[in-house]
């Protein structure tokens, strides 16, 4: 049985070419604002620092509700509205044992196939 992480947490780190975002815990109703703030910060940083790839690690994210999921949709939608030369790629790192991730990340990939890839 998987150990449950109470609450939601996020961390952002920079490497040479990429911005790394670690999301952990439970993205439920109480995490909606946090998720939105994190993605806003990621977007602003990626554009300001001319980052080519953002890596989102959700392997320890137990669950994401539709309100948090919508924050990702808005982020991707706004990214797609930018000129191609300023867009960055988004790589999701997922855990195949977390079945919701396969379904939800596939939806995001279909929504924004030009910028999203999903790795397991």
């Amino acid at each position, binding site marked *: 049985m998987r150990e449950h992480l109470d609450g939601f947490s996020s961390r952002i780190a920079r490497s040479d070419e990429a911005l790394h975002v670690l999301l952990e815990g439970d993205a439920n109703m109480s995490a909606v604002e946090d998720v939105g703030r994190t993605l806003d910060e990621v977007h602003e940083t990626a554009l300001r620092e001319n980052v080519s790839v953002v890596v989102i690690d959700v392997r320890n994210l137990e669950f994401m509700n539709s309100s948090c999921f*919508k924050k990702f949709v808005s982020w991707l939608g706004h990214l797609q509205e930018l000129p191609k030369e300023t867009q960055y790629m988004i790589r999701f790192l997922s855990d195949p044992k977390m079945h919701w991730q396969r379904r939800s990340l596939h939806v995001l990939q279909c929504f924004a196939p030009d910028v999203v890839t999903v790795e397991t």
Partner: protein
Amino acid sequence: MPQLYADERVYFELVFRPSVVLTTTVRRFVSDFYERVLDDEDSTSRLAMATQELLENAVKYGSHGETVLRIEVLRSEGIVRIHTSNRSDALNIAILERRISEMRSAPDPVGFYQRLLRATVNEPDGSGLGLARIRCEGEMEVDLTVEGDRVAINAIARTHSGAPS
């Protein structure tokens, strides 16, 4: 664990006042239930997601009082039914009726979900994504009944293995 028979109907009902904390607690509890009864990790995951989305809807749009959650597994038919029932106000009931009507009139769950995602990029929260997610990612049928100020939502899934072992 006690032996379950293939034709057994398994169900439980919770009556509670939903809160943010409780929705997660209940999701974990029902995940354990689905896991034991269905023995199918993918079905467990999509049913747990649907349960959480329905309970969060009850938190967001319910007006007062208790919410009833009933989960029923018809093992011989490979069907799981998630039922929530709560009171709500006229405005929220009308919004819910419109959303479910629009969703049910769209024959393709995937196409409807993707169109809804695109339409809500610039919208605030409360766009009906949860119900569309249940239908598409959860592979469930969703319907609604209203009696006075009481709203009942049924989400019905077929488990992948047909009759669960």
